[in-house]
């Protein structure tokens, strides 16, 4: 009767180990699947980031080209002003003034349409760096352009899946010990049962910690 009771106990423990193994295997599979999903999201974010960078580069380059054209006319206007100041008077001055009016007019036209004046520095240069940084910040706000966050989450989830699989090995050892306890006779069976319980408890605690911490 005593042996029957012990056999029932080991059978229940084997059932518990099986259930625990099933749960751990399930959590490992889910973590692995979520890691794949995070990798996919990271890939999508990387595509977004690359796309936004290319688009921002295009926009800023185009603005900078327009700024160069503006500078060409603007500086020409200043040189004409120098020439007017040096000439003193006469017909030449009238035509120089006309030319100056024309080139400064064209410079203004370019400034008003083809690039944002906000990035013009007081010294007459163009702050492309500021424009690209503002655009990059804008892109980051508007859409997911940070793949590293997803990839790091994917790495964490993969590590979680790996650790859960390691606990499965301990559960396997526990299963083996309970099976031995059921087969063996004599006092050894108790030693195996204790060993099985130890590995079961360690595995359950380990898996629970992994679930809580990761």
């Amino acid at each position, binding site marked *: 009767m005593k042996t029957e009771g012990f056999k029932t106990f080991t059978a229940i423990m084997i059932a518990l180990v*099986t259930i625990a193994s*099933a749960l751990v295997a399930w959590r490992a*599979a889910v973590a692995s699947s979520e890691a794949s999903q995070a990798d996919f999201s990271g890939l999508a974010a990387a595509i977004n980031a690359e796309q936004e960078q290319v*688009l921002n580069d295009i926009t800023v380059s185009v603005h900078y080209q327009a700024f160069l054209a503006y500078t060409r006319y603007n500086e020409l206007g200043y040189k004409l002003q120098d020439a007017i100041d040096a000439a003193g008077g006469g017909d030449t001055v009238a035509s120089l003034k006309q030319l100056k009016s024309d080139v*400064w007019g*064209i410079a203004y036209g370019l400034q008003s349409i083809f690039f944002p004046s906000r990035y013009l520095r007081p010294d007459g240069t163009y702050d492309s760096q500021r424009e690209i940084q503002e655009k990059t910040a804008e892109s980051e706000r508007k859409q997911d352009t940070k793949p590293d966050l997803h990839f790091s989450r994917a790495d964490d989830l993969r590590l979680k899946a790996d650790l859960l699989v390691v606990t499965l090995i301990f559960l396997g050892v526990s299963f083996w010990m309970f099976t031995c306890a059921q087969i063996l006779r004599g006092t050894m069976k108790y030693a195996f049962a204790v060993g099985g319980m130890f590995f079961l408890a360690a595995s359950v605690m380990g898996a629970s910690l992994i679930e809580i911490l990761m």
Partner: protein
Amino acid sequence: MNQTQASEERSENLVAFLIATVAVLAAVITFLQTYSSGKGDEADRASTQFALQAMQVRTGGETRASHEWQGAYQTWYELDLQALAADLAGDKAAADRFRLVRDRIAGLSPILSSKYFDPASGETPDYYGYQADTYIVDSTRLSEKFAAYNEIGDAWDDRSKAFIVNLTLLAVSLALFGLSTTISGFMRTAFIVLGSVISLVVLAWAFVVMLRPLPALPDTAIEAYSQGVGLASRGDYSAAVQQFDAALAAKPGYANALYERGNSHFWIGDYPASLADYEAAVRAGRTDTNAGWNLGWTYYLLGRFDDAIRVDRAVLEQDPSLIGVQFNLALALMVNGQLQEAEAEYQKGVDQAIREMSNAQQAGTQPPSSFWDYMDASAADIDNLLNEMSGNPKPWGQAPTPTTIRADQLQLRALADKMFYLLKDTTVALEFTGNAAPQTPRGIATAFQFGQEELDEKGNFVRYNTATSFAFGLNEIQVLFDYSGMKKGALEVWKVYRDGVEDPTLRVIGDWQLEESGSAAKPISYAYSDLFVFSSGRYTVEFYEDSHLIGRGIFTVEEKK
């Protein structure tokens, strides 16, 4: 064979049968799991492919459009200005030559074709229309397919995960059945019953998972939606609404179509229809901050301030860094009569803006470009509200009708004025110094007068002819005012707005060179060239000294006759 042995044999036979049945079920579910996982991978692959194609179409299209704008239109524009200059100088032959070259350029570029450009209108080419035709419709279609396949992939992955759980549970029931053969009595029966129940649950669960429909987005819906986005991007909102209607007919509850239709209704000015669409879009899954932002603003415009406050708060909970929504919340609280809370929220927004600027500086970066738009818009919204309350609304302003305002109007005006100055000061201080507005005394300027110089026949100054409205053709105007309490060398910024939008080409930035007090005439001018005059419209001139707004005035340039 005694009765116990017979019962034992029947029991073992039953267990053997159950194990075999569960093994078949496990095989079927393994197949379903593998199939679902494969389908999920297929959908993810298609999704990635569409994302890459969308990127290629968008970057390629943007490159082409930019080059058309920069290479072709800019060249055309320069030649056009040169022709105008030659005309003004009386050199008709030169003007004709420039126009011939200009027209030759026009024939070389699609953006300068009659579809997008009417040179006689004086407007720039329809860049958004060109973008829509070149890539926006295509890239939207591909992006929608990317999202749709991503959703399908997720659904297959969810199925696959459910089948993994099913398989795990079947493993448990198999173990229970196996163990039941090693024991006898009640425990054996309990193990058999438990294993059977688990197997039946798994069977039912697997059926439900398989029968659950997968998300589907018909191609017709995507096509109509993409066309709608293209039409909206070129400003044809009525036609866009029709396309979004078609998309929604093909796929009721299509969240993006509802949201974009809401945007089109908004720009048409049909706020109630817009509101209905935004609400439906949120219900259909558009729970992002953009949808909430627009929903909150539409509630505000329709006078539903409690709803506006609730939605703005929810959006800020999602993303507290959205200063645009922060100021919308403060505005809604103000018109709702919660003046103290409104002031606190405005201050919170200002503090956040200062912090954002400081963080960006520390990181060696810049705040987003929209940061400045939202800072400007926050003050403009107060201005629009005050104009509406004064019975003087502007066509470009958005504000609720005065009858819906719950606050005491005198108290509201006082707070609105104070907040307006706070926002204006902060924006200029952050943009030009990178810091909060200094706690220095504000200089004083009298109300601006606007005038033109009158000269005698020798070109000597006679007087200023002041007015508030000027005939078209004006190329220089003087801002006349008296001042006191100024600091020599302090930052001096002039900003000019035309019809509510700043014209940054008219900005003047420098150091205050005049005395501490006196009279001044500040020119705002195109007089350096004969080619430009002030466009018709309502101009608002703002003067900042040491990052404090100390003067603000309005003049109008009449329509060209």
